[in-house]
């Protein structure tokens, strides 16, 4: 497919076109960014038609054959991630048009926005482990700058803390890549998979696996390593919070971890139970503490940030159980949570836009005047806490089914109880912000903001009712890619 490099090349080109063209006319920044995200959205859904289940699209950069040159690999797992990124980025860029009126430096914002998109897209489709590191860094460094975008004291502090933690994670990732290169003399992920499966597992193999787990645990903010997230995500402008919480932590943390551990290292629950028990443990602790701390927050966006930690925990538990339905649930939750959590953060942006406040004690009675925002929030709450027709129900159901199949009945019961927790802390915002009889006259948010929220609400309902089609065309093939293990390497190199 000739279109594969466009996923990261278009936003990269946009990132460098925006600063030049917006010197001629300032509106170019909105125009270019929004048209590129729209193209990406169409391209990501169109790409599903180009290959069948079990097939892999391999793109040789510059025509160099796989072990030598950089390859781009597009299978259903990548497609799932690319579609999630495209949806969130599309909604966030529409939302930004009016939201940025409160900020100066619209051009810089869109440049960084395009770079973070390019970085995430690159992580999702690359087939080269050093290329993965480069894209991780592109996305991370732009996210540090975007967190500090408001240049107030708290924002700079949060960005600094985030940068230190994020760079420690990146450093360990680079260290792991260097050790792998020293061991296997190759950087191509498919070639690495073949080499490692032949070479067997010695101490170095497990050392690298442990370093990678540590690095990606920081990037995906699992509980003991989460301390940067509750500061960083609320500090960013709302559309960026939607990207960071909605998809960023999952691409850089969860996706990179599962791609490397399943497809490159060939880990399965049967041959490396300790690794998967650690994932279950970290996930469960994140769900538990993320939920408890979220219910005690007073800040709209900070509550949602802690909720993200809890939901990433659900994904990790699903991956950690490691059988078919649990992994399918985990992958489905990546998409479902991307839609829902970005919608929740966009409603927080709408509230901040209208009132200028984030403190739950000061906000009241917005349910009447900001009808669409309030209903978006309510529906997203129901989806995230797992009410059946909406999209958030199915992932948790699949994870619980997976836990039952793995004979972990205590885990299934615990997860069911903990997902009620989700409803508890999200209802707190409804009660404080939207559901009061006090009359407040706040104007409804601008049309473009409502449009982006409605887009996500429609997707949430559509994917909920049409979950069967989504499951067959995307989630189950993606699960099979993971369960194929090191067959990934053979599929690409053809050996």
């Amino acid at each position: 497919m000739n279109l594969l490099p466009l996923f990261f090349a278009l936003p990269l080109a946009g990132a460098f076109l925006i600063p030049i063209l917006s010197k001629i006319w300032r509106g170019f920044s909105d125009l270019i960014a929004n048209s590129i995200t729209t193209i990406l959205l169409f391209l990501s859904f169109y790409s599903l038609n180009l290959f069948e289940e079990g097939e892999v699209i391999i793109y040789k950069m510059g025509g160099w054959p796989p072990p030598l040159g950089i390859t781009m690999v597009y299978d259903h797992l990548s497609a799932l991630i690319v579609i999630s990124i495209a949806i969130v980025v599309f909604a966030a860029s529409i939302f930004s048009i009016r939201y940025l009126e409160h900020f100066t430096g619209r051009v810089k914002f869109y440049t960084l926005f395009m770079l973070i998109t390019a970085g995430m897209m690159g992580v999702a489709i690359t087939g080269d482990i050093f290329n993965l590191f480069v894209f991780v860094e592109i996305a991370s460094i732009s996210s540090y700058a975007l967190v500090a975008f408001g240049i107030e004291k708290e924002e700079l502090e949060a960005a600094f803390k985030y940068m230190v933690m994020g760079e420690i994670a990146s450093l360990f990732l680079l260290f792991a890549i260097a050790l792998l290169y020293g061991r296997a003399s190759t950087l191509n992920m498919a070639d690495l998979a073949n080499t490692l499966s032949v070479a067997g597992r010695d101490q170095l193999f497990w050392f690298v696996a442990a370093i990678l787990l540590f690095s990606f645990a920081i990037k995906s903010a699992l509980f003991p390593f989460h301390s940067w997230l509750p500061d960083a995500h609320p500090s960013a402008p709302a559309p960026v919070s939607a990207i960071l919480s909605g998809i960023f932590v999952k691409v850089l943390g969860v996706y990179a971890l599962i791609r490397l551990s399943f497809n490159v290292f060939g880990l399965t629950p049967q041959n490396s139970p300790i690794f998967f028990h650690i994932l279950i443990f970290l996930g469960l602790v994140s769900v538990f503490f993320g939920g408890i701390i979220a219910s005690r927050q007073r800040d709209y966006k900070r509550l949602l940030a802690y909720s993200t930690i809890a939901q990433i925990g659900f994904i990790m538990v699903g991956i950690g159980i490691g059988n078919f339905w649990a992994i399918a649930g985990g992958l489905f939750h990546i998409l479902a949570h991307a839609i829902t959590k970005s919608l929740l953060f966009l409603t927080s942006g709408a509230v901040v836009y209208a009132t200028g406040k984030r403190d739950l004690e000061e906000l009241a009675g917005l349910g009447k005047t900001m009808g669409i925002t309030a209903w978006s929030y309510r529906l997203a709450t129901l989806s995230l806490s797992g009410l059946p027709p909406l999209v958030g129900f199915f992932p948790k159901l699949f994870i619980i089914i997976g836990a039952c199949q793995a004979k972990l009945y205590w885990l299934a019961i615990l997860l069911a109880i903990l997902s009620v927790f989700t409803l508890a802390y999200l209802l707190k915002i409804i009660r404080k912000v939207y559901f009061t009889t006090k009359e407040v006259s706040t104007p409804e948010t601008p049309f473009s903001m409502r449009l982006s929220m409605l887009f996500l609400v429609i997707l949430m309902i559509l994917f909920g009712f049409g979950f069967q089609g989504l499951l067959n065309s995307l989630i189950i093939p993606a699960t099979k890619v993971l369960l194929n293990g090191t067959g990934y390497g053979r599929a690409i190199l053809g050996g």
Partner: protein
Amino acid sequence: MSLIVRKIASIIGGFIFLYGIYIVLHGHLTPGGGFAGGVIIAGSFVLFVLAYGTDESGEKKRFFIASIFESIGALFFIGIAFFGLFLGSLFFLNFLPQGLPLKLLSAGTIPLSNIAISIKVGAGLFSIFLALAATKYFLEE
């Protein structure tokens, strides 16, 4: 800065700039390349700013020009990659004739990519220097 510093800077600044260009153009033959050469080119600009000083308007103008060149360098680079896509249907395809090894005009698009990188890196590092040496103009913005 004193007269001695200014005089020395004016003599060697040009040579540093020229050496940077040499490193860039021989990037495909010798150690170095776009990044290293770009850093040296930026170094010559930094030397001039340090020796002769700057004021608010000069800084503003320099920053404006540097930011334009930075974007142009990046666009040039990604344009070369896109040309490969359009001409040979592969992103980053080396579509130019490769020539003989160890000649200056060889290796197809790689010298062009080096030039693009050097523009990007040189302008980028120079604007980082201006931002770090932040005077009034940056703090107010």
